[in-house]
């Protein structure tokens, strides 16, 4: 039954993987830009002006573009104190509930963030700094990330609910289940959990 559909899932996975690299590259560039700013300020007493503003945009865009990937890697943290006590079937139900709630929240967020973009276009808004950047530009990129996130949420919800109805608890877990520490290890080739890892 999921014969033609996984194509969307595969596409979603491909897009969110590309998105996370672009998002990550923005953060790497931000690190470079800020370092340049610090060095130039100290050595040559000049300011590139606006490194702080640009890195703020990089944070917004970089994180929204990575949200889909985080969903795919099941990195959005869930508290599994109770969840851990259940057997496979109730877990599958909770997993479906979790992805539906997350998708719902993603849609709400996308809708209202798109409102911010629309407002910026209506107002012709620019940033209040010397760069005076038209806000639709960073905000448009930002929304794109949320759109990818929402679309992926919808695809995953669809497959998870189908699998749940078909009684395939293992498939639900594979799609949207809570990550266990062992899974985090195996995915990273024996390295310690680099992903769920750094969460403070």
């Amino acid at each position: 039954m999921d014969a033609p559909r996984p194509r969307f899932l595969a596409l979603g996975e491909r897009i969110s993987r590309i998105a996370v690299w672009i998002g990550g590259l923005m953060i790497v560039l931000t690190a470079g830009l800020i370092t340049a700013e610090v060095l130039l300020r100290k050595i040559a007493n000049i300011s590139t002006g606006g490194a702080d503003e640009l890195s703020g945009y990089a944070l917004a865009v970089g994180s929204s573009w990575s949200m889909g990937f985080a969903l795919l890697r099941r990195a959005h943290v869930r508290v599994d104190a109770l969840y851990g006590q259940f057997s496979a079937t109730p877990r599958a139900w909770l997993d479906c509930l979790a992805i539906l709630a997350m998708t719902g929240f993603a849609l709400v967020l996308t809708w209202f963030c798109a409102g911010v973009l629309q407002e910026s276009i209506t107002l012709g808004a620019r940033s209040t700094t010397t760069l005076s950047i038209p806000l639709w530009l960073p905000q448009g990129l930002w929304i794109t990330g949320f759109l990818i996130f929402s679309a992926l949420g919808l695809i995953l919800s669809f497959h998870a609910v189908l699998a749940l109805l078909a009684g395939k608890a293992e498939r639900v877990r594979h799609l949207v289940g809570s990550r266990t520490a062992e899974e985090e290890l195996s995915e990273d080739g024996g390295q310690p959990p680099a992903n769920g890892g750094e969460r403070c």
Partner: protein
Amino acid sequence: QELPKTSFNYVGTWGNLSLYNKVEKPFFEQTIPEQSGGAITVTVQPFTEMGLKGTEILRLLRSGVLDMSATLLSYIGGDIPEAEAVDLAGITRDIDEAHRMTDAYKPVLAEVFEKQYGVKLLAIIPYHAQIAYCRQPITGLDDFKGLKIRSSGRSQGDLIEALGGTPVGMAFGEVVPALEKGVIDCGITGALSGNLAKWDQATTHLYPLPISWATTFVAAGNDFWAKLDPAVQTFLEEQMSAWEDLAWESGRSETADGTSCNTGGACVDGHVSDMTLIPVNDADYAKLRDLLASVVVPRWAERCGSECAARWNETIGKELNLTAPTE
């Protein structure tokens, strides 16, 4: 005359600063209910308590989230270039001049707010003079050349660049450590608020020329305003007009108090400090006027458009004898 029972929310500025505690809060919490014979009640909260930064206020008024609120004009300069008009960096010599400019331009701003952005402008009030605190000796405007100066808002940046300095954007909380360690050389903030935030302890020289007044507007969402009883509208407008004058007096006394506290004089609200007060001479004012005419005003006019520049020329420009280019 009996006013109908009305209640609404007012979200004010920073909860830890005097503008909110001494000007906004008493007015909305006490004066309005008293003067309306208990008919009008206001729930008052500073935006800091709601986790807001103040830059979102205009949009929250537009979308009807907030009934009535206040924030810095410079925060919305990106959305409404006209908002910068009354408080362009270095444009006024003293608070009386600032008050006159504001009064002259208020109708223009009210029209822009209402027609283009759907919010009702109710009052424009100053915070107090925004002046430069420096960690090294300066004698006048020329000495800002080559210094790194923490500033906020577009036109402050333009002015600092025109002076040959480097404008640095920085969170308020990072300024004192940055001054102490020399990441920046000077910072611009309120005469009294800088004292209260202990900027005086990280700096030595105070340059009292008002760069700006951190002018704040109070506005209401159009939908909210339209639903009010006309008698209530009239009442609120009258009350706020009287309150506006009080706020300007408060701005005057706080500017004087802050400057005096920082430089070892009489001190009411701050703590006494021993910063060196740099006298502002006529040559500085003349130089500033040149930079305004050649850099700050033209750059702003470019952002605002020719029609906007023309209206500025008719109002503020006429008073100051300055002309913004209309292309």
